[in-house]
């Protein structure tokens, strides 16, 4: 019998001594410099955390490299953040700079703290998933190369700006509540393969699987297949999941939506869902310069226009979407207007707006 259900290793065995000692009794913190947090305990003890940027997709040898730094300066302990960033923890102020140098020697940027941009939550994309409408790691690399100054603290922002990316509507990573997000989407109906349909798929199941009722039997009774309504299809790809003869990926019509203004934190304002700022940009690997450009435009407008400590969503709440579109120069199109379920809530039931 296999041993099961032993649960994860107990984190308590992995904590640095200074954390064990000050567990639950930290008093305050400061950001000493970009990427370096100093936490001070009621005891007076100090803990330095050095945060470094990393790809999400790494190899074991990379982890071993991190271990070497941790062994050398951190008594063999380290952690990762909720945004994939390795963090080195030490109670010795004198270790901070050596850790930074060691990380930089590995090509890792130190930063991601305070009012700027940290690592990007993202998903698998073409590397490993079966339903992506865009890539993940490639696009993230292109974006973070460009936004690097905001990570390492060369440039700062009015507040944290959280970036996320998901490669399909499943939105692994829950990018629907984040300051700035990219989600992969299809924009064309699935191409039904009438030849293989009958062998590979079950008609009633396939039809029932479509959330909008867009799939009908083929009008020609001789053809044992289905047709998809251009009117009703919202390109969700559910049908493909059920029936391999209905591929929805379409190189010319796949790309991304850019979302803005969401957040999870309940600081000042309640959590907010992200909203569609750009309904579609086609894929353009390897560097998606259009996507990167639009993100930069939004970020720079936010940087120039928002007041500390407004998050992107709070800034837009204050200036209004009228001004958001005007100031970023992004076009407002009919696709930005909600026409899905319960869309009325998003319409402007007021004469209060800005010109």
């Amino acid at each position: 019998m296999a041993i099961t259900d032993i649960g994860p290793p107990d984190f308590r065995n992995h904590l640095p001594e200074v954390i064990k000692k000050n567990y639950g009794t930290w008093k305050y913190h400061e950001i000493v410099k970009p990427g370096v947090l100093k936490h001070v305990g009621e005891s007076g003890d100090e803990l330095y955390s050095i945060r470094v940027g990393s790809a999400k997709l790494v190899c074991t040898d990379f982890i071993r490299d991190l271990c070497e730094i941790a062994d050398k300066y951190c008594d063999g302990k380290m952690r990762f953040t909720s945004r994939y960033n390795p963090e080195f923890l030490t109670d010795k102020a004198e270790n901070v700079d050596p850790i930074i140098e060691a990380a930089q020697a590995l090509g890792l940027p130190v930063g991601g703290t305070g009012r700027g941009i940290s690592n990007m939550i993202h998903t698998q994309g073409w590397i490993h998933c079966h339903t992506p409408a865009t890539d993940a790691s490639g696009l993230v690399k292109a974006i973070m190369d460009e936004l690097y100054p905001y990570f390492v603290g060369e440039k700062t922002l009015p507040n944290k700006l959280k970036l996320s990316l998901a490669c399909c509507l499943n939105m692994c990573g829950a990018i629907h509540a984040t300051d700035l997000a990219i989600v992969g989407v299809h924009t064309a109906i699935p191409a039904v393969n009438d030849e293989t349909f009958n062998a590979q798929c079950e008609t009633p199941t396939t039809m029932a699987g479509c959330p909008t009722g867009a799939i009908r039997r083929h009008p020609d009774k001789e053809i044992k297949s289905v047709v998809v309504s251009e009117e009703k299809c919202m390109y969700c790809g559910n049908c493909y999941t059920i029936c391999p003869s209905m591929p929805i990926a379409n190189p010319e019509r796949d790309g991304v939506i850019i979302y803005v203004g969401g957040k999870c934190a309940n600081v000042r304002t309640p959590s907010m869902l992200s909203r569609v700022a750009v309904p579609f940009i086609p894929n353009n690997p390897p560097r998606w310069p259009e996507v990167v450009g639009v993100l930069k435009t939004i970020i720079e407008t936010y940087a120039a226009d928002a007041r500390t400590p407004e998050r992107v969503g709070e800034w837009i709440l204050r200036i209004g979407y009228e001004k958001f579109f005007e100031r970023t120069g992004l076009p407002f199109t009919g696709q930005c207007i909600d026409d899905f379920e319960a869309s009325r809530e998003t319409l402007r039931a007021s004469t209060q707006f800005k010109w």
Partner: protein
Amino acid sequence: MSETPMMDELEKGPWPSFVTQIKRAGESKALMAESSKDLLRQQETAFTEKQGLWKHGGIVGVKGYGGGVIGRYHMRPEDYPGLEHFHTMRINHPCGWFYTTDKLREVCDIWDKHGSGLTNFHGSTGDIIFLGTNTEHLQPIADDLSEKGWDIGSSGSALRTPTGCVGPARCEYACFDTLDFIHDVTNTFQDELHRPPFPYKTKIKASGCCNDCVAAMGRSDTAVIGTWRDELRIDNDAVKEYMDSGMDVQSLVVDNCPTDAIEMVNGKLELVRAEDCTRCMHCINMMPKAVRPGVNKGATILCGAKAPVLHGAVLSTVIIPFMKMEPPYTEFKEYWEKAMDWWDENGKVRERISELIDRVGLDTFLKHMEIKPVPQMVKTPRANPYIFWREEAPPGLDEFKKYIH
């Protein structure tokens, strides 16, 4: 003892009593004076039984009109003979509900001649309501009215009697001539008003500013609400007068500006962030002598308000952020006719225009209307990623070239 003790109870107290009015109608020379007593008795019964006693509708009408009369029959005509038929008729009011006493007496006379003498001044839509008459009097009423220059209002799946606030007649805030506009529109759309052509009722209301004194935001499929396109005007001498008279301008006016657009700068009120002002009227309401709308005036056109049946109540939402409102209101009329055409073609029976928009999406409406989508129409863009492109081609890479840094 009185036959109607509960009704008598409702003659007590300081507020004017409808019971007194019903009794008085009974004393008057109104044709159906006898029905007043029956009405009080039936009302006493309703109060006792805690439920209404009127039968369902029943269709009645007058020649040449498809509406304007609401048929009403009693459940127990044997007990209340004076109420066997007790229809109402809706009479279109003069805009702003302005009357000469001659015209008022005239309309009262017609009603006394043909009905119960009971009336609402006015109904909630804005008509004069003649409350209670027999089927045989309907046509004579209509004839007498039109002879004297009155016309019937509306009911059924028609344009309902449009109303506007008192506006320029007595209000310094009016950003367009609500009365002339409503009068014009009412006359232009007589056919739509009198011969129900639509899937359901539809309403137009006009308020001269966003104080919205006819509650257009809440109860008109088409709401026309005055606003201005430039900057509000401040007269600091008058500001000073208000301050001298003891008004705390900072806390009452400035601190309540929702957009932080105004500030006191060196003792003067200034519109320091003009582009942030959403023309909410607050500062103007507080100091009408000192602050007033801009000079480039017009209206915002909103669409869709209605009562809750069937999917919950709806407030009007922005369709045209700014429209100039000048006679003959061609732009408005073209807008309205086109919108009604679309609704007429696509709406199901008993589906108001906002319910149709909810069903097919605002963008579909805008496309038909050939109106460019602008962010003023929404509170926020969509949160869901379910964008329908349909026959439209999504943008290509070229359209984003300019963003490449």
